[in-house]
């Protein structure tokens, strides 16, 4: 919709004011302005005539016959009818079809809750220590006088056992990835010079005391 000239702007203004002038809610000034515009604009005059006819048609009585007395009688009868009772609560046990279904659903939910609770209790009571150790954690305690020993691959098991027996040592850990064992005195009173004797033994490639930190 374009209104480039003043006359077109007037036509738009006339168009917008027509319903309100026709229904009598426009101001007297608006009505006078519209009549003045209509006097000089044939298109708006035709439009206004059609609008007037439209209003006249809309004011005709309805062509659908509805008896007011009959309707009023029905309404008054409706006022005398008892108030409709509110619907009973949907979840009630017993006395209603389908209540067995509600019961079954509640039982299933309770069983699930019990199962979940038991599982949670079991998990809570289980040892929660992880299977790994971080560098910030203290290392596992080592036995007093423990020595890390790397025997030669050619050393027989009999020689290894004889050596441990002679030095009153026992294996407390190992072998690790590089074949090292951790040995410790079998009794608290360990023989002095065990480390030196291990180092001096043929077939022992390495013997170092175990310290706390790597």
């Amino acid at each position, binding site marked *: *919709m*374009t*209104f*480039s000239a003043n006359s*077109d702007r007037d*036509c*738009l203004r006339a*168009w917008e004011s027509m*319903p*309100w002038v*026709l*229904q*009598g*809610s426009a101001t007297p000034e608006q009505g006078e302005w519209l009549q003045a515009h209509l006097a000089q604009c*044939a*298109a708006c005059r*035709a*439009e206004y005539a*059609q*609008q007037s*006819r*439209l*209003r*006249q*048609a*809309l*004011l*005709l*009585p*309805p*062509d*659908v*016959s*509805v*008896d*007011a007395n*009959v*309707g*009023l009688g*029905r*309404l*008054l009868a*409706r*006022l005398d009818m008892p108030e409709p009772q509110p619907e009973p609560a949907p979840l009630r046990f017993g006395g209603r079809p389908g209540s067995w279904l509600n019961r079954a659903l509640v039982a299933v939910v309770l069983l699930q809750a019990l199962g979940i609770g038991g599982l949670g209790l079991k998990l809570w009571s289980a040892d929660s220590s992880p299977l790994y150790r971080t560098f910030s954690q203290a290392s596992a305690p080592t036995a007093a006088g423990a020595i890390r020993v790397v025997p030669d691959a050619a050393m027989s098991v009999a020689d290894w056992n004889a050596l441990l027996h002679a030095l009153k040592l026992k294996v407390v850990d190992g072998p690790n990835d590089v074949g090292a064992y951790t040995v410790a005195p079998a009794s608290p009173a360990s023989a002095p010079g065990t480390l030196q004797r291990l180092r001096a033994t043929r077939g022992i490639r390495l013997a170092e005391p175990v310290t706390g930190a790597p």
Partner: protein
Amino acid sequence: MNDADIDADVTDRQLLQRMSAGDRVALEVLYRGYHGRLCRFLARLTRRPDVIEEVINDCLWIAWQKAGTFHGDSRVSTWLMGIAYRCGLKALRQHGDEPVEDDARPEQRTPAHDLDDDRELRDWLGKGLDRLSADQRVVIELVYGVGHTLDEVAVIMQCPVGTVKARLFHARVKLRNVLPALAGDAPVHKENLP
């Protein structure tokens, strides 16, 4: 709002006040006073007399129930028309908007006292309104038939005033394009008019 409208609203408010106290005579007066207006308004939504009566009764039933809670933010007529509009839309959803035996017995559509001019005018209007949507018909009826302002129509239809303006504009453009031809006149248009 002119003096007659103000007086009518004062009377309507008094009726509502009496209704809130259980005065059925006041309900009867209100019912009869609005029956014709509501009937014509609802006839723009449906052609079924049974549905129209049902909606009018639903509307006045709600008015009876809610009379005590009417705050007076709008005219009573605006309030009632709003209730009727919502009840009418609900009835349309339930019953559909198809007429019942409407075309089968056309003589029942036209009151016996209808003059030839009125009948012709009614046919002309009916053919024009058939081209409009339900909301456009409602706006046309409320503005031209009942005489409500844009603000009041917005309250009745519970939508922004801009929406009412748009519906009125499009309805008028459609009617302007079809009604002259229906009346056998040549349309008088300016090329750049709406």
